[in-house]
């Protein structure tokens, strides 16, 4: 679990990019929870953090591919994007970078 940001660093319903251990990760503050995905869209590297967020998905701003926020699975066409675990402690938002876990293992 790595500290990513404070709760109010991310406007409600939006995402922001943070670099953790060399990984660019998009942290989302959706209506009902926090999510984290790799920042770059697998399609052409679009900035997912700039996408429109809804209850369970984010829409890439470049070509409208949609990804499930919790699993990173594409809703429709395309490859999945890596999803990371998120925890909120107090006003701190912590991310468990999946890739890091794998490296460690």
């Amino acid at each position: 679990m790595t500290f990513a940001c404070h709760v109010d660093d991310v406007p409600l319903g939006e995402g922001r990019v943070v670099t953790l251990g060399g990984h660019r990760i998009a942290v989302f503050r959706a209506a009902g929870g926090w999510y984290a995905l790799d920042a770059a869209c697998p399609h052409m590297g679009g900035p997912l953090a700039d996408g429109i967020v809804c209850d369970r998905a984010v829409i890439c701003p470049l070509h409208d591919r949609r990804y499930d926020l919790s699993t990173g699975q594409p809703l429709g066409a395309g490859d999945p994007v890596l999803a990371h675990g998120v925890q909120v402690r107090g006003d701190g938002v912590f991310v468990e970078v999946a890739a890091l876990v794998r490296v460690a293992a």
Partner: protein
Amino acid sequence: MPSIAAPPPGCTRPFTRRPFITWKHPQHREEIPTRDDRRMSDSVVIVGGGIAGQAVCEALRDRDPDIEITIVCGETSPPYDRVRLSEILVSGEDPQTLQLRPGEWYADNDVELLLGRWVLAADPVAGRLTLDGGDELAFDALVLATGSQPLMPPIAGIDLPGVHPFRGPEDCEAIRSAAVGGAKHAAVIGGGLLGLEAARGIAAQGCAVTVIHLLDRLMERQLDAGAAALLAPALAGLDIAIQFERNTQWIIGPEHATGLRFQGGDELAADLVVVSVGIRPELKLAREMGVECERGIVVDDAMRTSIPGVWAVGECAQHRGLVYGLVAPIHDQARVAATTLTGDDAAYLGSVPSAKLKVAGIDLVCAGDFAGEYEAVVTDAAAGIYRKLATRHGRVVGTILLGNTRGSEALVAAVRSGEPIDDPLQALADASLAGPADLPDTAQICDCNGVCKGALVAAVTVGGCSTPREVMAVTRAGTGCGSCRPAVIEIVGVATGGLSDEPTYLCPCRKQTREQLAGRIRDDGFQSVSDVAAACGTGRQCGVCKPALAYLVSEVNANRHHEERDARFINDRVHANIQKDGTFSVVPRMYGGVCTPDELRRIADVADKYEVPLVKVTGGQRLDLLGVRKQDLPEIWRDLGMPSGHAYAKAVRTVKTCVGTDFCRFGLGDAIGLGIEMEKLWEGLHTPHKVKSGVSGCPRNCAEATVKDIGCVAVEGGWQVRAGGAAGGNVREADILATVDTRAEALRVATTFLQYYRENADYKERTYDFIPRVGLEHVKEIVLGEQSGAALRERLRIAKAAVKDPWLERDDPYHPRQFSDLDTPDIDPPGPGGEPALVGPPAGGER
């Protein structure tokens, strides 16, 4: 033979992916083996490369991949769509765009094309013909498609400079350049279809024009007195004057046409004269060969002439005593000729003539014989509407639809098939409610290319086309005179399950339309997207509709809503256009494309200071700074000190202007002045889709105002206000909303339309789709209506009053991190917090 989608019975033209394979009429299927083994001719020469020559060529190639085909054509341009010359006369487009097939098509389909060569003589017995210059050509079969010549009455002065027929591209060019290049007054001799279209083309160039007609009513061949009486005022509304019962005795010279002299001694000054009194079938070659000719080349039902081995098709042919001056019959004749020529049986039984007047601003469709033994007429003189159905022996024989052509496809189809009918009045009423969607599959939609509804539907259901443009490309419907395009679009829409039959949903997940949601927002006073989401469940599942909701909420609340940026596309969160690499572009506003040296200096300085990778002049008459980093945006805006150009938003974009009266020697109106006034009045207003405008100081239209969402063009004595133009993914000439006397009125009409569009268009529906959907007449009614118009302008004023320049958010961002990510060092981890509370992702990710 590749597989093709069989269209429904009765359909005259197939849907096919490969345009040169046609489906054969079911009734003929037995007689017509798919692979033709009874062919008599190995080589065919087609004389004439007009629509007829091309149609025969394509029909032949459809039936037989091997037969040698040569087209010899006196005209130097490859086969083109003569019908659309009327359009070109208005728009000034390059006649090149009229080509029926791209150059490579002829090679691909191994068709020999001899352009600019005339056939002087032909000997069918020896199977040889002689070209100008003496070369010879061998043939087994000869098809005469020599068309016709414009009729030039033998009156004095007919050959003076300044006098033109209206038949070919060269005439079109000559007429247009005269009208544009300072002709003072034009006269069109002949008030038929063609004459009126010529007059419209001239008037559109801002040149005064008078139509001279021999009889006491226009288009006497297609219209009865009642309809004609309503047509005249409609034309007057388009600045086309008309003089009836005028018999032109001679054209006054001496060096150049200066006027017309009529029987009785009256005269009319005219330095541009267009003669459009009829056509004369081109029979020289046929006569020379000894082929039987009367008014045209006499052909039988097989399209054979009096000499074996010689066929005739098109405007040069006379079938059962009739010579057609129309395209629709040509395609039927060509199919029959190709069939009989390749040794099968087929019969052409004649066509029911039908016509559409291709004059923007006037809807007129007529078919068959308007004089029946019983005639049902519905007319509203004030509205310029006249709808008539003529019957004989209980069958439909003719129709005239003026001012309101709703249901024309159905009625024309009824005329064609001589449909039995007991209550014509009821039929008229039903038709006015029916859209193309209600038509039988056999109803012909595109007359130019003989495409029926079934073929369009097949293109979607079998051929897998998904857009009107694809369907048009495949079936060629709508590629002729274009007057059927709206019908094609509606039919394809229904076939693809998109348009008309099922409403377009703003929120596809919850199947709610813009109207429904706007209603809820109004009634329940919702202030924000989340209000709507909570109440209606929209915007939660897929999120696609969030920007649409954001616009709707802001529009209904006249910009006094509660803004939630998460509902906006990234462009509208940071007020810049996102680029492929995640950077942004910055386009400051330059009202009417005018800017000061100081503004230019500041733009240059910004470009240096922030190392902007590219500075570019946009297509919208302003400057674009591309490749800017998100976090630099606020500083750049501050340094620029210019307002946002909204180049990133669904909002009022640019108002392009030309120099107009300020400097231009042709200027009739203050284009820059009006343009800047418009842009300032509309600036910052968001719209269902982007709105781009233009203002030209004269009909030369340097600001391209006629292909803008909203455009104004200065004309002699006033302004023409247009809307619904496009010159992007597709090109559409803007409809004329009104021609007004003053600049103030022009601004008022344009502004009223803008608000009407803001309130009524679907999200992401450009004006060029909006107007055809709701109908120009309806739009005019509301926009030009006294009360309705005033109400619209008042609502626009209120909405505008709440507009703020978004770039001012540089000083009060809606969130400290509106423009920045989290990598900035000012974040340090909190001290040891309480128990970790797992917030997301929640189990199953659903709630």
